[in-house]
C-alpha cells in the first residue's frame, strides 16, 4: 500500500461534496447549481474509488464509472433545460421559476 492514508482522500471527498452542496443550496443560477451537482458527484466518486483501493476491490471503481455515465446523461438533460429557459428569455434564477408551487 503506497501513498497517503485513505482518510485524506475521504476528507478531500467530503470537502468536494460539501462545496457542491453549498453551491446547490445557496446559488440561484441553474447553471451553477448544475455545476455544483457535478462537484457533489465527483466527491462521491472519489470516496468510492478510495474505498475500492483500500479494500482491494474493483466494485467501487466499476460503480464510479457507472456514476460518471449517469452524471453525463444528467448534464445533457440539465443543460437542455437551461438552454430551453434561455431560448424563452426567462431569467436564470431558480427562485423566480416557481410555477409549480402548490
Amino acid at each position: 500500500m503506497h501513498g497517503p492514508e485513505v482518510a485524506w482522500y475521504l476528507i478531500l471527498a467530503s470537502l468536494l461534496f460539501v462545496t457542491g452542496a453549498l453551491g446547490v443550496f445557496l446559488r440561484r443560477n441553474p447553471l451553477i447549481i448544475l455545476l455544483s451537482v457535478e462537484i457533489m458527484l465527483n466527491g462521491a466518486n472519489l470516496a468510492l474509488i478510495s474505498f475500492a483501493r483500500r479494500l482491494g476491490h474493483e466494485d467501487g471503481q466499476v460503480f464510479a464509472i457507472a456514476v460518471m455515465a449517469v452524471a453525463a446523461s444528467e448534464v445533457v438533460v440539465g443543460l437542455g433545460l437551461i438552454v430551453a429557459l434561455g431560448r424563452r428569455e426567462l431569467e436564470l434564477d431558480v427562485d423566480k421559476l416557481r410555477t409549480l408551487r402548490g
Partner: protein
Amino acid sequence: MMDAAAWVCLLLPLGSAVAITLAGTRISRRAAGYLSTLTTMGSFAAAAVAFFALLGDQPEERAHATTSWTWLSAGQFSTGVTLLTDPLSVMMMLIVAGVGSLIVAYSVGYMEGEDEERRFFAYMSLFVFSMLLLVQGGNLLLLLAGWGMVGLSSYLLIGYYQERASAIRAAKKAFVMNAFGDATMALALFLLIEHTGRLDYAGVFANAPTGTVATLVALGLLGGAVAKSAQIPLHTWLPDAMEGPTPVSALIHAATMVTAGVYLIVRTHPLFENADFVMDLAAGLGAATLLMAGLIALVQTDIKRVIAYSTMSQIGYMFVGAAIGAYANGMFHLLTHAFFKALLFMAAGLVIHALTGEQDIRRMGGIGRVMPWTRTAFLVGSLALVGIFPFAGFFSKDSILAATLDHGSYGMVLFVAGLAGTFLTGLYAFRLYFIVFTGEQSRFAREHHHSHHGREGPFSMMWTVLTLAVLSVVGGWIQFAPFWHPLTDWLEPVAEPLVEPTEAQEWLASGLALALGLAGIAVAWLAYSRRTVRVPHAPRALVKKLYWDELYNWIWYHPADTVARYLGRAFERPVIAGSLDVLTRGFGLGSRGLGLAQNGLVRSYALALGGGLAVLTVVFLSVR
C-alpha cells in the same frame, strides 16, 4: 343405454340454453326458438327411451342410478352427481319434457316479434333443465340444486318484461317466497345429514329418522313443497307470476315448478310417513288451499289469474292425495293436470294474442264466434278441469276423492272439502268460459280482434293446443280406478299407497264429484250465459284475495320499513353520514396545509432533502 338416455334427457336443454346464450345474434330469433323446441323434444325422446328400457325390467328392479363424479366429499359424508331412473322420475321426465316441448313449440308462435326472443328461449331451456335436474337427481342435494335453479329460472321468466315494474316486483316476490322454501329444505337436509350421514334416497330412506327429528325434517321439506307449489301460506307469489308471458305461465303451471312440491312429497314419502302430524298438516293445507283458491277464482277478472287460482286449487287436490298416501293418485292428477292446464293457458294465450294483449275478461265476450277452434280447446280444458266424464280430470280428481274416504274421520273432512272444491271448480271454470267465449261479441273484441293469421292463431300455436286438447280427452283413460290401474302398479315399487279405496267408494266419489261439478257448471250457465240468476256483488275480501298480501305486508314489510326509517333518521344520517362529513373536512384541511409546503422554490426542496438525509444519517449512526 338407460343411463345414457337419462344424461341426454337432462343435458339437452342445458346445451340449448348455453348454445343460444353463446351464439348471441349469430343465430336468428326463430332459430333460437326452434333449437329450444327441438332439444326439449329430444329430451322427451330420451325420456321415452328410458321409459321403455325401464319397462323391460322386473318391477322391483326398476331403479337405476348412474353417477358421473363425486360432487362433494367431506369426512364420512360424500355425495355424487347421480341420476336416478326409476318409475317416478321417468314419469316426471315424460311430463316435464313432453308437455314442456309442446309449450316451447307454442311459444315460437306466441313470442314472434318480441324484442328479445333469444333470451326468452334460453331461459325456457334453462327452466326445463332445472326441472329435469330436480326430478332426475338421485340424491336430495341434487334435488335441492334443481329446486333452487327452478326458482332462479322462474324469476328470470316472470320478470321477462323487464321494462315493466310490476313484472319485476312479481319476479322478486316469487324468488323470495321460493327462497324461503329453499331455506327450510336446506335445514331439513342438514338434519338428515346429521342423523343418517347421507343424502342419497336409498340410504336416507333405509335409516329414516323417527320421532321429533322426523317431524322436523318433514316440516322442512313441506316448507319447500308449499313454497314451490304455491299452497297456503306461501301461495301469494303464484297469481302475481302471471306477469310473465303466457307460455311461461303454462310452463310454470303445467310442466315445471308448481308440481315439484307434489313430486317432493311422493319422492320422500318414507320421511313423511314417519311424521303423521306433518302428513295431516300437508293434507289440511292442500284442502284449505283448494277451497280458498276456488273462492278467489270466482271473482278475479284477469283471465290468466283465474286460471292461476285454478292451478293452486288443483295442486291442493294433489297435496291432499299425496299427503294421505294416495301417491299414485296424486301423481296421476299431476299428469292430467299438466295436460289440461297447459291447454287452458295456451288457449287463453291465443285469446290474449288475438286481442292485442288484453287480459281483462270484462272486456271480452263472444270470442267463440271468431275463434271456434280455440273455443273448443278451451271448453275441453274446462271440462277436464271440472272433471266431467270422459275428460282427463274426471279420472284423476275423483280417485283422489275416493282415496280420502279410506282415510278415517280426517279423510271425511278432506272429502267434503274436495267435493265443495269440485263445485267451485265448475263454477269458476265455466264463469270464465261463458264470459269470454259465449254471448254477444263485446265492443272491445270487435274493435281489437286482429286477424292477420286468419281468424284463429297461427298454425305453430294451434297444433300444440289441439294436441293438448286431444291429450286432455284421452289422457285420463290411462287409469280408471275400479277397472284398471296401470299407473298405481307402475309407481308401486317407488311409492306404495297407504290407502286403498273400495269399488263402492270409487263409485260414490265419482258420482258425487260429477254431480257437483255439473251443478257448478249449471249455476255458471244460469248466471253468466242465461243471466237468469243475478250475480251477487263480489265480496271485497275475495277481490282482495283474502288479504294475504296485506297480512304479509303488516307482518314483515311495515315493521321492517318502520325500523329502517327510524334507523335512517336516528343512526345513518347523524352517525354514518356525519362521520363521513368530518372525514372529508379533515382531509380537505390537511391537504391544504400540505400544499403550503410545495412552494415551488427548488432550493428549499434541496435543503429539505439534504436536511432529511442528515437527520437519517444521525439516526442510523446513533442507533447503531
